[in-house]
């Protein structure tokens, strides 16, 4: 691979221990090329959320480094990094804190100094991409859970991120909302890292998967191959749902 191609995300030897001494990450290595959609799989407690918190500098690496599109995550680059890494949290009520949908989507770009007509355009565009434009003036708590998650995605899209990081995007969604979100994610022209233990969702959306287990990347390969390896899955406390068979290509 050409070294001149800048990856969207590079994580090198990342280790982290919480202040109470619990070691969560033991040297994580991963790279995501621009335009890739990658799933990060792992059982509860594998360190998935801890890893995600490093990607936009909410937690700072105890050891190792995180680089986003060539820019290292450091104190002096935080502002730029947060512009480039779009984090979609698991509970949309945590993410949508402004009085209306429109204001919430405007929050990120406004912090980056976008104003006036340009801001309106960015907000409209982001809401359109998730099919929520007609809800622009509504307060978030009047939306369904699936709608709120889509707005949460829009709040991040409005910042034109280099990489979109989704924490358990399919959790708490009914089957239709789950499919609608999948369609939206597929339609976006942006690098995606999807943290999940919803294996069929990973297979549906991501060609490549990583398994994070015990604080290290235990496997990295085509999603289809990883999910076909029953032994590998069992070793890392991952299971396909009952009755699910990997569909033939």
């Amino acid at each position, binding site marked *: 691979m050409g070294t001149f191609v800048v990856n969207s995300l590079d994580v090198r030897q990342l280790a982290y221990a919480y202040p109470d001494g619990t070691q969560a990450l033991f040297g994580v290595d991963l790279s995501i090329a621009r335009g890739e959609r990658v799933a990060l799989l792992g059982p509860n407690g594998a360190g998935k959320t801890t890893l995600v918190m490093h990607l936009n500098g909410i937690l700072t690496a105890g050891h190792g480094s995180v680089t986003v599109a060539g820019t290292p995550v450091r104190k002096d680059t935080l*502002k730029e990094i947060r512009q480039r890494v779009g984090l979609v*949290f698991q509970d949309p009520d945590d993410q949508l804190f402004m*009085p209306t949908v429109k204001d919430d989507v405007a*929050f990120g770009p406004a912090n980056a100094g976008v104003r006036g007509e340009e801001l309106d355009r960015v907000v409209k565009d982001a809401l359109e991409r998730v099919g929520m434009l007609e809800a622009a003036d509504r307060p978030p*708590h009047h939306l369904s859970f699936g709608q709120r998650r889509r707005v949460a995605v829009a709040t991040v899209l409005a910042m034109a991120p280099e990489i979109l990081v989704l924490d358990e995007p399919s959790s708490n969604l009914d089957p239709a909302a789950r499919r609608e979100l999948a369609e939206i994610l597929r339609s976006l022209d942006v690098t995606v890292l999807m943290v999940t233990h919803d294996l069929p969702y990973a297979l549906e959306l991501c060609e490549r998967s990583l398994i994070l287990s015990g604080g290290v990347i235990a496997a990295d390969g085509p999603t289809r191959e990883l999910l076909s390896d029953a032994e590998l899955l069992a070793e890392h406390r991952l299971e396909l749902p009952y009755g699910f068979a990997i569909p033939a290509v």
Partner: protein
Amino acid sequence: MGAGHHHQLYLPGDSVVHRLPPQCKLLAVFAFAIVVVATPRERFWAFAAYAVLLGAVALVARVPGTYVLRRMAIEVPFVLFAFLIPVIGLGERTTILGMSLSVPGLWAAWNILAKATLGVIASILLAATTEPRVILIGAQRLRLPALLVQIAMFMLRYMDVIVDEMRRMRVARESRGFEARDLRQVPVIARSAGALFIRSYERGERVHLAMLSRGYSGQMPILHDISASVRQWGIALALPAVALAVWGLSW
């Protein structure tokens, strides 16, 4: 909770009062309240004039009287307190309907009741014609402390979320046979309240992370700068101005 698209205090409409910028209305209500409070309690007709003024505002804003009356329930505890004063008050006494009442107490009760009622009606009219989030935009515009405005904004946003959480906890308690009958059940309720506090605190931390992730640096970006024209200020301040004229005449 999620009933309708508007806050329960807000009465959607498109009157002159509805369309006024929030900062004008906030300042008008505040100034009106000051004038009312500064009026000596013996000037009965001044209070009547203030009431007529508010009636005129309600008429222009098309806020029905019954709507205002229903919202005035919030004043009930103060009314009860005001009724107590003449009974327990000291000084010269008079007999009304067979009850011995204190004269200074009666004056004090009237003073509280009249001024509080006018203030409450003015606030109800403000709330009925201005969406809560817009009131906060007005507060921001009037350069009220940013931290207080932000706290109020988050309260507005998360009130329903927290009430909903409280409801789920109640359902969970009752599903396991809990019934709040008397004082002995208080510790259970108290523990629920504690758990709710912790949960809300943790949510606050997560919201803060979400804000940081989108570039928050202590200042809320000003998204709506509603500027007011001289004419709009004029319309809004007509209320305290007329009240002030009444006050002047009452001397």
